[in-house]
């Protein structure tokens, strides 16, 4: 009998094309997702060397980072550089014959939301994209990670990647989550505990009852931020929920192919006794609604806590924390719930799916943005937007004073006009609170959609459980 394998081992082994004596492998790539920012140089490289895209049918492109989220973008993008990048993707998709969802297509959206929505992402696949949040697709039990532009060109030309195998790390979330606690709180709490380099060199498998209990949307939120914990990829073993989500999607297998696929997918789990190089266990009951206070995703605290002092840390983190507190304009010892906000952003590949919008709308129903606070909801795809409108969620957001935008990455990285002004403070459902991330001098507090909705109502960081108690 062969040695017990982890889920990662199984997917890896199924994709090795060639192994060199030193262990360097050539790994086959089943799906290559492409967006406008990290691909133009790769396509240019192909042209200069006279190469083609090896498997255009496995390559899917969509513009998301640069596109404005306001009406009229179908015909004109004001920013010239953004327009050139989007036009370059239009041309590259056409010239190289790859699958494409242009900005005029209702299915356009953030690449990591479009992939699963269209059934491109399937269990057991290898999925790459020139984008670090490719980890999102791991929620399906697919080995998915970000790559640089040179590697994008490599995959376009060869449909493979040169890789060394990572180590196996298990993150188990046991038991049940408490009310008001979401997938975002799980993933932020893990990073708070392990640090932004805790997963470096590993592929993480998330497991345990609290992970099993999550919807596919929630699992995508957890895997999405594996990269913020340093891991290239996060994985969750596929189960009935996964199969149910995938079934019937436009690019999912049908008929006999579905049955064959399902039979293989059901073998994709970590064998009893398989070895993990690192194990982290967190009790679901111990996770509280959390927010970030600093400029690293590891700067996580329960909403009931106070702002730390630089001296609370050790090593290089002391200076980093001092710099963060200064940048964020916070004083040690102040209650997190006393931090006033200027803006709320609900969206991104972390929390821009229908379930996220439903959860935020549930809190905002019949309420309004606090005076002086601006709010923006950016659905993750045109189809998410459409569904939200069918459910009347757009009306709840608009009645609450939010702007209801078109799909894209938007303020999460501020490459389009959606940005924070210097010093402006935002409750955000996105994934990075780095200096300048949402606009130069902008201050970002990461949190779940329900926590962002709660902050929107009060105008300061707020424990969503207090709002929930009021509504009961």
């Amino acid at each position, binding site marked *: 009998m062969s040695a017990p394998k982890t889920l990662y081992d199984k997917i890896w082994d199924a994709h090795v094309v*060639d192994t060199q004596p030193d262990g360097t492998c050539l790994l086959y790539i089943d799906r290559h997702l492409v967006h406008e920012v990290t691909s133009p140089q790769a396509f240019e490289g192909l042209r200069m060397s006279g190469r083609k895209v090896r498997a255009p049918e496995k390559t899917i492109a969509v513009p998301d980072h640069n596109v404005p989220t306001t009406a009229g973008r179908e015909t004109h993008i004001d920013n010239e550089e953004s327009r050139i990048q989007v036009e370059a993707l239009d041309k590259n998709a056409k010239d190289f014959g790859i699958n494409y969802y242009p900005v005029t297509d209702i299915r356009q959206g953030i690449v990591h939301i479009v992939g699963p929505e269209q059934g491109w992402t399937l269990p057991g696949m290898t999925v790459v994209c020139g984008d*670090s949040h490719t980890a999102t697709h791991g929620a399906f039990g697919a080995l998915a990670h970000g790559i*640089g532009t040179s590697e994008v060109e490599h995959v376009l030309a060869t449909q493979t990647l040169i890789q060394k195998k990572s180590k196996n790390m298990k993150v188990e979330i046991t038991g049940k989550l408490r009310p008001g606690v979401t997938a975002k709180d799980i993933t932020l709490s893990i990073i708070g505990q392990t640090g932004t380099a805790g997963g470096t060199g590993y592929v993480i498998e998330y497991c345990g009852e609290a992970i099993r209990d999550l919807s596919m949307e929630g699992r995508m939120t957890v895997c999405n931020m594996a990269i913020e914990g340093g891991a290239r990829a996060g994985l969750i073993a596929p189960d009935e929920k996964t199969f149910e989500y995938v079934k019937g999607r436009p690019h999912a297998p049908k008929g006999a192919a579905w049955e064959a696929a399902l039979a293989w997918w059901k073998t994709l789990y970590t064998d009893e006794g398989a070895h993990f190089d690192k194990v982290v266990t967190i009790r679901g009951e111990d996770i509280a609604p959390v927010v970030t206070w600093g400029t690293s995703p590891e700067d996580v605290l329960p909403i009931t806590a106070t702002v730390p002092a630089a001296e609370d840390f050790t090593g290089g983190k002391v200076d980093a924390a001092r710099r963060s507190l200064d940048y964020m304009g916070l004083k040690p010892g102040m209650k997190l719930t006393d931090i006033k906000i200027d803006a709320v952003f609900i969206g991104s590949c972390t929390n821009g799916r229908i379930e996220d919008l439903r959860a935020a709308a549930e809190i905002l129903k019949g309420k309004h943005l606090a005076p002086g606070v601006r709010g923006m909801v950016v659905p993750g795809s045109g189809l998410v937007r459409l569904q939200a409108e069918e459910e009347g969620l757009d009306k709840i957001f608009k009645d609450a004073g939010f702007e209801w935008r078109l799909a894209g990455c938007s303020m999460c990285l501020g490459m389009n006009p959606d940005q924070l002004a210097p010093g402006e403070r935002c409750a955000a459902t996105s994934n*990075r609170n780095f200096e300048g991330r949402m606009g130069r001098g902008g201050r970002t507090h990461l949190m779940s959609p329900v926590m962002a909705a709660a902050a929107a109502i009060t105008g300061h960081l707020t424990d969503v459980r207090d709002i929930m108690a009021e509504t009961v």
Partner: protein
Amino acid sequence: MEKFEKLTGIAAPMPLVNIDTDMIIPKQFLKTIKRTGLGVNLFDEMRYNPDGSENPDFVLNQPAYRQTEILVAGDNFGCGSSREHAPWAMKDFGIKAVISTSFADIFFNNCFQNGILPIVLPAEAVAVLMEDAKKGSNARMTVDLEAQTVTSSDGQSFHFEVDAFKKHCLLNGLDDIGLTLQKVPAIDSYEAQMAQARPWV
């Protein structure tokens, strides 16, 4: 790709931990469709004031460090986004090697794709080199890839590990795509097998 063999140059100290790729090259410069010209915007928001003038406190603006070729950086350098614009900007500025206790995975790989050598050393060694870097432009550090050593200006030498294949590619300036295309028969054969085994892919 340019070869990397041996380098003697000015090293700049950047002790801050978790220097992310948004710091290395902020998003407004990702709108380019070229790989070159980003050096002027390397570390843009740390390097320039909001009015566009240089921040004299930032290390690369100081006269001693304007010709920096090596960075000695705090833990977890290059975390965050996969943007290859980060090593492109470093290369365009003239940085050819970075020394830290750890690097984020994607950034680490992106460096090798651009002829930049990321060097992982233990905290004690990085501390010594950080102090050496603080001596300014009269103190030159040497990185020898063949020998796998970094030597400080006063002759203290530290051995580092590097993946054998990546070393081979860097020393010879080999292009990954060219190497992989030699293995097209293996890729063809894998695809043929998979057409039977997993036709839905």
